[in-house]
């Protein structure tokens, strides 16, 4: 069985996509008091802004990313802080923490994986003109969501 087939089979059998969707929805609803709506791939594009990354090691090896535009990131930080104006540091911190919580919530929902999977502390890239490429050579699951109409892309990319 090829690595691609193994990934697809495991993701299907373990219901990764609905599990990831639930993990994302819980983080946004509980920590931000906001709902996110799933969108079709390619329907919404993110231009620059923020990309937060959390590394996975152990039973799952790869990287979780959350990508959104600067205004969306600022809005997320304001929601988390209780509508207090957010500084630049707070905005990056908020996006990193959201990525961290989604990654943790996802792995905690995968039976048997949470015990054998470790998370890194988050890293955040920001700016107006950059491309993000993961060096993980395996497959990925990406979810495009709309937060008050603005795109948020969550991706789990694993080493094969």
């Amino acid at each position: 069985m090829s690595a691609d087939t193994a990934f697809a089979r495991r993701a299907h059998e373990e219901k990764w996509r609905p599990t990831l969707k639930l993990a994302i929805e819980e983080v946004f609803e509980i920590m931000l008091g906001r709902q996110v709506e799933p969108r079709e791939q390619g329907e919404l594009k993110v231009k620059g802004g923020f990309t937060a990354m959390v590394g996975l090691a152990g039973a799952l090896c790869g990287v979780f990313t959350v990508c959104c535009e600067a205004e969306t990131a600022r809005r997320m930080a304001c929601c988390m802080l209780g509508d207090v104006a957010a500084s630049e540091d707070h905005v990056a911190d908020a996006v990193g923490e959201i990525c961290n919580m989604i990654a943790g919530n996802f792995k905690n929902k995968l039976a048997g994986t949470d015990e054998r999977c470790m998370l890194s502390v988050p890293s955040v890239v920001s700016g107006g003109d950059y491309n993000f490429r993961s060096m993980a050579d395996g497959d990925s699951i990406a979810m495009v969501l709309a937060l008050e109409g603005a795109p948020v892309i969550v991706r789990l990319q694993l080493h094969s």
Partner: protein
Amino acid sequence: MAAERWEPMDKTRALIVDDSSVMRKIVERSLRQAGVELEKVTEASNGAEALVALQSNVVDLILCDINMPVMDGLEFVRQIGTVETAKGVPIVMITTEGSESHVVQALSAGARGYIRKPFTPDQVKEHVLPLLGKKV
């Protein structure tokens, strides 16, 4: 003079340990929403900073993340016994790490509560108020 020791108080002095400044604010807000009257909040961004903060701050409650740079939350809990004024202070872990092994490690090291992120203010209330001798 004997060092000041921890005793339960009506007004709470809290130490919040998390590498995310946004999360520290959320934890503080959740404590207030849970009805904890905060006299003072001390913040630290990792376990090592928290140990230093405890040298000059007597606290009644510690809320601590696990995954942090420099010194993680589990190591902090293991080392807190070296700080005389922090002995007996209840510690509640608030973390994305939800595995049973992390819970067992934290509780074995001396933590009194364990809350998984994402968390609601009600969960903070449920775990923290009994530790402060208050009804939920």
